[in-house]
């Protein structure tokens, strides 16, 4: 066992993911937190520590977002911190929650992810232009979609991958999302729909991308003693990992996310996983773009480099396949309120391992699941491995 105490997930909750939700960020955080507490059979007074994950302040336009959201996360007069590692925030939030309890310092921790992107005009993408180096990048007018298109293209070039193989990810995830009651973009679409959608930044087209979303999601973590008193079927956090690469992203080969591999290796070592494709039964990998699901499957060593499109084409990553990827519908289908989307992925693994996922439930009785997120300047990976 790593740490002083074994850590369990005992409750999860989330709001609808939508553009332009009426609720404030605080209200969204409250809804998700209350739902998770109810599911765990706890009240906020039972919570000893709180970790909030939320991404750029520029979306909400509140430059003290952790503090602003604290009340919605039940953090009033409690040990509280906000973590932020770009798109990697959601899964890193549960990693941070883990060490609160594993350290022996607390027996319970409420983990919350919130994002309200649609308050930002003319488009939240504009807020992202301020993440780049001000001296040698920004004067060029660089945008986030430029750099992801550069990464996607490099990945396609190195392995000779076709757009139609990548489009299959979008088709699968949007179809999976039809069974998720909180999903923003569940749909039955075809590969042709993706290939015919408007070009944003070649090779990225409209249907390759996840939407602008608002939403929140939350988890309740507890030490083994507390968890066993409250539930007969806790889900254990058996591995956590996180890693960052240099901000000089043009100085590395973008075809492979080595930093995701490092984060995965940390989590696998802790969980005693030697053969990830054999030992992982279900994975929620970060899919803000369809190619990212494939790129991350490779980084997570769920397959060899360049093989993820082949597994996808063969149906291996479908819900009834040998290695189901993003049964929730992922960011492409459920939506992408950044930090909340990463926490949503952890919620999905929790529900899948408990057998509570309803129409989305994987039938083969999954026992080991993984969630992963990715962010910053194509440089950050966060991973969690859970077991029932």
């Amino acid at each position: 066992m790593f740490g002083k105490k074994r850590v369990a997930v005992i409750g999860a909750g989330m709001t609808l993911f939508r553009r332009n939700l009426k609720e404030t960020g605080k209200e969204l955080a409250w809804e998700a937190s209350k739902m998770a507490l109810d599911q765990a059979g706890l009240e906020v007074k039972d919570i000893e520590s709180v970790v909030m994950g939320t991404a750029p302040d520029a979306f909400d336009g509140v430059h003290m977002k952790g503090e602003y959201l604290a009340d919605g996360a039940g953090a009033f007069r409690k040990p509280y911190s906000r973590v932020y590692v770009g798109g990697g925030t959601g899964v890193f939030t549960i990693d941070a929650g883990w060490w609160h309890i594993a350290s022996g310092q607390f027996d319970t921790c409420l983990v919350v992810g919130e994002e309200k992107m649609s308050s930002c005009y003319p488009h939240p993408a504009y807020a992202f232009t301020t993440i780049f180096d001000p001296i040698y990048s920004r004067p060029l007018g660089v945008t986030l979609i430029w750099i992801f298109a550069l990464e996607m293209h490099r990945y396609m070039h190195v392995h000779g991958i076709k757009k139609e193989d990548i489009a299959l990810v979008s088709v699968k995830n949007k179809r999976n999302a039809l069974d998720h009651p909180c999903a923003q973009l569940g749909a039955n679409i075809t590969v042709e729909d993706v290939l015919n959608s408007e070009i944003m930044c070649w090779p990225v087209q409209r249907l390759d991308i996840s939407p602008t979303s608002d939403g929140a999601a939350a988890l309740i973590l507890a030490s083994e003693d507390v968890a066993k008193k409250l539930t007969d079927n806790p889900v254990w956090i058996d591995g956590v990992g996180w890693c960052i690469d240099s901000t000089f992203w043009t100085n590395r080969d973008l075809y492979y996310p080595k930093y995701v591999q490092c984060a995965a290796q940390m989590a696998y070592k802790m969980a005693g996983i030697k053969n990830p494709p054999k030992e992982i039964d279900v994975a929620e990998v970060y899919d803000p773009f369809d190619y990212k699901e494939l790129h991350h499957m490779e980084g997570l060593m769920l397959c060899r480099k360049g093989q993820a499109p082949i597994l996808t084409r063969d149906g291996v990553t479908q819900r009834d396949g040998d290695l189901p990827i993003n049964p929730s519908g992922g960011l492409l289908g459920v939506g992408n309120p950044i930090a909340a989307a990463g926490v949503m992925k952890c919620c999905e693994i929790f529900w899948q391992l408990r057998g509570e996922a309803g129409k989305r439930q994987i039938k083969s009785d999954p026992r080991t699941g993984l969630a992963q997120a990715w962010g910053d300047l194509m440089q950050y990976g966060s991973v969690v491995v859970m077991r029932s």
Partner: protein
Amino acid sequence: MSEKIKHFPGEQLRGRDIREGRVPAIKFRPNIKYAWSTGVAMNRFIEGLKQGKIAGSSCNKCGRIMVPPRSFCEECFKATDGYTYVKDTGTINTYSVSYVAGDASRIKEPILVAVIDLDGASKGMGILHLLGEIDDWKQISFGMRVKAVWKPPEERTGTITDIKYFAPIREE
């Protein structure tokens, strides 16, 4: 979402209703500006650009010639050992073709974007820049050789845009 949960919180509004004031909404536009000092290493880069040269820095321990230059080597975590100039020619490592501007609005003439591995720098030391003098973006290819097209000296201001773009090197 768990099958045990039957209530899904959240109420969607229409973006137009928020923008046009048909539902209660508060608006705010910040007005702040920044002026950044360019730092120790990037001063060399900026000064080089004014002279039509691309500066890099070298590390004697790992042997790398790095672009953009830095005052410390992040691999070896030691001070770099000096500045050098690399060539303004290079090879396209990857490229993309943008039909959207920074605010996500559509643009007619696409912006051609590339990571260019510069000659004289260590392998894989690319920089982000634009491509130009290309009629049809379908003519761009991985591994294509390109050269910087500079603004005239009197128009250079010491920014990365002193290079207008990189253009294909036409074989003689």
